[in-house]
């Protein structure tokens, strides 16, 4: 399952077989990610694609492949992206994942307070302990795209639409939601500004019911 927020997980302790993740979900570049796998499982797997840097011995009769992880890294690597990914990982490591988690937890609670604004409904659990700092909401009488446009005009970026989850939106009976997310660089003041602009959205569209 892809997750969009960072928290520390101990994969070996959890007995995880495989874990795949994207750099762009952890402050890194797009187009690069990593596959974690237990060594014996990776060793049992055939290559996904063939190419340079992953073969050991090639004859007309057959080929043998390098051990993992090289076996799965055929061809020219995405050098710049991988170096950027490494820098992002080191940066998060220096911040400390405990600190990152605590910061996001605090901001999750602040973001959830949008539910106190008249006409604004949070989708999903209201208990901050059950949330990461990603909060989807609807504004009664105003379509998510219009909500997003007003926020955008104030320099606040939210995602609007169905967030790659159309069946879930159908389940909640809404066509689209707006979704605010906070990261390591988001401050409480940012969230205050967001709530302030959001509180004016219904007035802008003259929805007072």
């Amino acid at each position: 399952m892809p997750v969009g927020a960072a928290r520390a997980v101990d994969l070996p302790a959890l007995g995880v077989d495989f874990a795949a993740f994207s750099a762009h979900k952890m402050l890194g570049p797009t187009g690069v990610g990593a596959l974690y796998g237990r060594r014996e499982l990776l060793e049992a797997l055939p290559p996904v694609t063939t190419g340079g840097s992953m073969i050991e011995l090639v004859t007309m009769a057959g080929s043998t492949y390098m051990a993992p992880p090289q076996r799965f890294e055929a061809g020219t690597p995405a050098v710049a992206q991988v170096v950027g990914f490494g820098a992002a990982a080191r940066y998060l490591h220096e911040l400390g994942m405990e600190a990152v988690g605590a910061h996001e937890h605090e901001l999750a609670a602040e973001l959830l307070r949008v539910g106190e604004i008249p006409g604004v409904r949070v989708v999903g659990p209201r208990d901050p302990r059950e949330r990461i700092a990603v909060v989807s909401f609807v504004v009664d009488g105003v379509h998510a795209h219009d909500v997003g446009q007003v926020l955008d005009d104030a320099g606040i970026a939210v995602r609007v639409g169905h967030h790659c989850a159309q069946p879930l939106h159908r389940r909640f009976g809404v066509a689209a939601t707006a979704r605010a997310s906070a990261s390591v660089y988001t401050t409480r003041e940012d969230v205050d500004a967001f709530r302030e602009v959001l509180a004016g959205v219904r007035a802008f569209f003259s929805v007072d019911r």
Partner: protein
Amino acid sequence: MSSLEQMYQQVILDHARSPHGRGLVEAADGAAHGQSHQVNPTCGDEVTLRVEIGGAAGAEAGGPAEPTVGRVSWEGQGCSISQASLSVLTDLVTGRPVTEAEHLGEVFRELMSSRGKGLDDAAEDELGDATAFTGVSQYPARIKCALLGWAALRDSLVTSGALDGTTTDQTGAARAAHATTEENR
């Protein structure tokens, strides 16, 4: 006026609040009609639009019979821009010859590719209330909202047989922002 206010002109907000033509109406018995369901896959906005084809606008004026746009009705959900655009187009094309409605659609698609600059006075006179969407053309992500209804209208006219879908040219912007039809989703 801020660019946000330019986008959400009062006429757009009014149409969005009380849209014209909303609520699908069955075509009269035997009347030629067309229907189209359009979706913006990026945002989930959708509309089903039905158009009835009237006859003989030209004949009344003594000329050759020419198909006209009869009742336009639609059911949809989406942002205020898409809903207001549907409402405005309903007012604009109802009762017009089909060729004129198609022409207005082309002018509107041109307006949407004007990047906020608008069109000349003659074109804006033709578009009437639809000129209010000039501000929307500054926002590439929202142009498709304004075009959703027009894509449905055009497709309905083609399915009704009153418009030849193969000959009429579409502007590049319209092609780029063209919503998918049910068939090619």
